[in-house]
């Protein structure tokens, strides 16, 4: 096993993949706290902001936004200057301006609380000072004005969680089923594997879609549905391994010592199947994530206000002409994760089976 680790450590591609996965996971876990935005926070004045490093509102965007606000205050902007993050503006109106209407300014997400510096005698013009907010949207905002980066990271939690949990469930069912079938052998094995064959022929994705459509998709249900599809491969791998392990001396010794079937399976058989199972599991995670994103893309998966990479990509694909970054952002995260997982799985396979590594 330690030699396998050594071989894995020498595989630069697999190591890079592992590092990338760690970085993405960490970013998804702590990132949303660091972006400075709540995932559900809507900036109605900053809809579909393109990605960039600059602070919003951009200086050229201040004046139009002000004019929209002034219109609602029934006033016009005579002059506005922004200096050191503080905006000074002069408002005119045909009627006296109600100072309470200035609360439109902080409500717009762009400006802080205003302060009236001067008021003309007839009240028809005001000199107001208000701080200009500095908001950063590294990957831009979506069609509702939510920060895309925060949403991608929060969505990543859901996608990764689904991938890991569904794989874990598939792993437990598949390993237990395969080990029992392989160890018992004979007729029990034949019947159990025949069942697997029948299940293989069922158009399973259809059943998943039916479950999701008819019984209102929830995260838990998606997990179970996906795991129910994916344990079959695992069962086959473990059964094949177990069949060969059964005849080995240490298993027969354990039998001769009178250990129970459960003890033999859990202590001697299953641990020895873990190598190929680890590989299959690593390659299963990206498949589950892909399946989940496919279902979410159809609108059957994770529902608002929760979101996943698939759901975000679906949103992005709808706005592709006006805001291509809405597709590019989540797609980049998803594809990077999937490629990294595949590379890691291949690396694991090579590390655990050096014979194969030399051959390929």
């Amino acid at each position, binding site marked *: 096993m330690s030699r396998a680790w050594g071989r894995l450590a020498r595989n630069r591609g697999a190591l890079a993949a592992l590092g990338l996965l760690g970085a993405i996971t960490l970013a998804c876990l702590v990132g949303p706290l660091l972006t400075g935005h709540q995932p559900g926070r809507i900036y109605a004045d900053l809809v579909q902001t393109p990605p960039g490093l600059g602070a919003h509102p951009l200086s050229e965007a201040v004046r139009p936004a002000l004019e929209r606000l002034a219109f609602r205050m029934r006033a016009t902007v005579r002059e506005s200057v922004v200096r050191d993050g503080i905006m000074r503006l002069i408002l005119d109106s045909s009627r006296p301006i109600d100072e309470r209407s200035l609360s439109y300014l902080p409500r717009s997400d762009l400006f802080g609380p205003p302060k009236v510096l001067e008021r003309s005698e007839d009240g028809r013009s005001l000199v107001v000072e208000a701080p200009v907010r500095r908001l950063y949207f590294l990957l831009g905002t979506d069609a509702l004005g939510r920060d895309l980066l925060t949403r991608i990271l929060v969505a990543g939690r859901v996608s990764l969680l689904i991938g890991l949990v569904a794989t874990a469930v598939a792993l437990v069912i598949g390993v237990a089923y395969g080990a029992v079938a392989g160890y018992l052998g004979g007729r029990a094995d034949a019947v159990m594997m025949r069942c697997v064959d029948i299940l293989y022929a069922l158009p399973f994705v259809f059943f998943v879609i039916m479950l999701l459509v008819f019984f209102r998709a929830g995260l838990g249900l998606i997990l179970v549905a996906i795991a129910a599809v994916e344990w079959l491969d695992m069962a086959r791998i473990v059964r094949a391994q177990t069949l060969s392990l059964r005849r080995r001396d240490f298993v027969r010794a354990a039998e001769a010592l009178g250990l129970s079937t459960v003890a033999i399976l859990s202590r001697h058989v299953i641990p020895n199947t873990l190598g190929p199972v680890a590989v299959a599991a690593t390659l299963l995670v990206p498949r589950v994530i892909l399946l989940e994103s496919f279902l979410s893309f159809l609108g059957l998966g994770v529902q608002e206000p929760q979101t996943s990479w698939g759901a975000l990509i679906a949103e992005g694909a709808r706005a592709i002409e006006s805001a291509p970054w809405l597709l590019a952002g989540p797609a980049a995260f998803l594809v990077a994760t999937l490629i990294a997982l*595949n590379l890691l799985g291949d690396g694991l396979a090579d590390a655990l089976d050096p014979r194969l590594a030399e*051959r390929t």
Partner: protein
Amino acid sequence: MTGFVLRRLLQAIPTLLAVVTASFFLIRLAPGGPFDLERPLPPAAMANLARVYGLDQPLWVQYLRYLGSVLRGDLGPSFSFRDLTVAELFARGLPVSMTLGALALSLALILGIGLGTWAAFRRGRAIDRLIGLMAASSLALPTFVVAPLLQIVFGLTLHWLPVGSWEGGAPSHLVLPVLTLALPQIGALARLTRASLSEVLSAQYIRTERAMGLPPGRIVRHALRGALLPVVAILGPTAAALLTGSVVVETIFGLPGIGRYFVDGALNRDYTLVMGTVVLVAVFVILLNLASDVLSGLIDPRLRLAR
């Protein structure tokens, strides 16, 4: 061989029965019905509709009736597409989906096996790594990302190809959907071919052929015959998936295939359409798996004996 095919077809009967039974009862367990509208119909009209479509019968009677009509080859009328039977809907959509699927399958076979062979013969070189990386990426790229990207690049930016629609199957409208469908399969086939061909190339008989100075073309042919077994094994599921249409590709490119029927049918509680699609896909999967097993037997006589 005939005995084997017959036995497999007999074994398919319980599988099909399981598929039909499970999906029939699952869809009936679901809340809602095919005639639920935003503004509910008067009860008398609902009762009439239920009687016309036989929905007023007990569930097991409906089930047996459905089984009977499927056995006669009648998939029943569609609930959501008025005046059309499920069979007529398939007659419209299936040619579209199968054209796309067959083209994508051919493209995937040619490019996948070709690139995989190339990589196996240049193992460890730069071209091998490049093909490996491209294959891994193509497997990780979801179709719903690839399709919009292709639309942007070739449709909206370069204006070389139309963004969508069927137009009677005009070749220019086929390029992007076929490419999208084929891409992940190219990657999968290339990886598989490379792995199994690498194994065969280190076998004794190939080394002997090399030592005897056979022309490379002959060696490739001999090696491929052995190496293609795993490829043929996954050909069944792959072909079934491609030929029965893809929801994503048909939605994004606006194609009238059968890929959408299942999801739309399920959303509209169109019982017969959902059931029909499930039966159709199951039949495709079973037949194509059988075909790929028969093909394996033709390539490798040892497999015939094992049966």
